[in-house]
């Protein structure tokens, strides 16, 4: 896998965001808010943190990413395509009949997709299962999981939080997409989650809190999680939903609504302007 510098990660994230807008607009359906928000964590994982090989997607010792919040898959699809798992032209097939790019990811349809997900709250438990099985076989790879904050409403998630602590799964790193919104509104109004850091601490986890758009912080936190041998690490990543598109940022109404062609044009203009501001390579 080709690893990118921090500047390279920024460029890559911008390109992924442009693809996210194009994909969702093309089919007129999808989740732009969460997808745009998680892009930086996703890009850092595929282009810096994870040990993986797009030419051998089923390589037994690859690091694994379980995307629990499956609705943000446009970000993962674009990152996988850019990393070389499949050709980028496939991205335009999102959510279309017969496409491997399902509305929510399905294992087996697309290389690099580790499980079927979307129904919330059950991704961490799957990551726990992989981590336990890997330890049984003395496998050395790491397991990463991305969850939204909204899915912390689910009992299944907290059951897994307890299990990960019981078995002291230090090979497991959880990113919590703390964007503070869910479908019905702000998380603290729908079902209060704070103080989330303290909750994870009380459940026996090693906890880090970072800016989910700062690559240095994302990478440093992952390194710290790798170095922690006592148990699992939760990285609470403060994230701006809709990041990179001014009129989507922080607005829960963009959770599951596709932009109109005009809105998409405006969004892409902002992202292209941002790209230009990085200067030449």
């Amino acid at each position: 896998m080709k690893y990118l510098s921090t500047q390279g990660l920024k460029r890559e994230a911008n390109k992924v965001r442009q693809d996210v807008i194009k994909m969702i607009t093309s089919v007129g359906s999808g989740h732009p808010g969460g997808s745009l928000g998680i892009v930086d964590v996703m890009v850092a994982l595929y282009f810096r943190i994870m040990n993986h090989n797009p030419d051998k997607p089923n390589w037994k010792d690859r690091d694994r990413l379980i995307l629990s919040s499956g609705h943000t898959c446009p970000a993962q699809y674009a990152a996988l395509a850019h990393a070389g798992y499949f050709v980028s032209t496939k991205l335009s097939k999102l959510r279309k009949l017969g496409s491997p790019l399902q509305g929510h990811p399905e294992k087996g349809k697309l290389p690099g997709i580790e499980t079927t997900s979307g129904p919330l709250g059950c991704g961490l438990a799957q990551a726990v299962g992989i981590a336990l099985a890997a330890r049984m076989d003395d496998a050395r790879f790491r397991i990463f999981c991305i969850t939204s904050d909204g899915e912390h409403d689910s009992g299944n998630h907290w059951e897994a939080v307890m299990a990960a602590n019981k078995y002291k799964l230090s090979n497991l790193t959880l990113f919590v997409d703390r964007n503070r919104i869910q479908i019905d509104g702000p998380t603290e109004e729908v079902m209060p989650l704070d103080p989330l850091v303290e909750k994870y601490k009380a459940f026996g986890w090693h906890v880090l809190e970072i800016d989910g758009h700062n690559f240095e912080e994302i990478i440093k936190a992952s390194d710290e999680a790798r170095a922690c041998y006592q148990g699992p690490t939760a990285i609470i990543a403060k994230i701006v939903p809709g990041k990179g598109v001014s009129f989507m940022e922080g607005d829960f109404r963009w959770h599951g609504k596709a932009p109109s062609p005009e809105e998409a044009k405006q969004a892409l203009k902002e992202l292209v302007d941002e790209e230009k501001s990085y200067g030449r390579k």
Partner: protein
Amino acid sequence: MKRKVMEENKSTREGFGEGLIEVGEKNPDVVVLTADLRDSTKVSKFAKKFPNRFFDAGVAEQSLVTIASGMANYGKIPVVTSFAVFVPGRCLEQIRTTIAINNFPVIIVGSHTGFSAGLDGATHQALEDIATMRTIPNMTVVTPCDFYEAKKAIVEAVSLGGPVYLRLERDATPIITKEDSKFKIGKIDTLKDVKDPQVALIATGPILSEVLTAASRLEKNGISSLVLNCHTIKPLDTQAIIHAAKIAGAVVTIEVHQKAGGLGSAVTELLSQNFPIPVGIVGVRDLFGESGKPDELLKKHGLTAEGIIKKVKEVITRKNN
């Protein structure tokens, strides 16, 4: 003097527990997970013998099956156990999403089904589990009829390469098959064959001992019947069922489960579209159970030889009209 000794009654959950030790020895990839029910679901022997391959998820059925999904994702063959009201009852969506859509080889073991959790009352009596599980694509659904069959069922289930639901009972029930009887998931086992049957009795699970009693009483009254052990509800042995329907001209299905969605539904779905003949369904009629001894509850719901005979007579009348 040689004397045939009747075998002592044993439960299907015990048969499963014994078979599990056998597969554990043969296949190091088999792992077992339970939700705080290791003794009740007969996995404590496995836990003692293979402590590194045993996991207790606590009273957390959703994480039980999703952790199992993760283990299967990596390459293990997890066997998850609980009472059927809880697994699949409490975690159906997780089974559907993370096990069935992925087509992972997870063996889902639901114990204490039917009225076998009698004294515990309606909350603990699983009467809907066949219906929910058999509508899920990729899922195989098996109800062993006795101790030996349960033992064989777990041995074969782990080799299928996909998700399997194994439906067990709590109480000791008569041994109907033999230790060396042939068993194959998806293949009906004929327990009683006759030349010119007037009815085919198709049943699943330990209730088959009552079905055999009904068949011999019917015979004394001049009504000959086939008895088919339909241990696998999905995939259904369509060939054997259509053949039985053709030679008998009438069918009665028997199961300790709601009439809606169970074996009776599966058989009528098949026959109504392929060889429509009179069919009677013996099962629970859209009711919950209550506290009571299993025998008392079976009797109350007509799941006895008498109830079966009554249904047979009714179906034969329809056939002859």
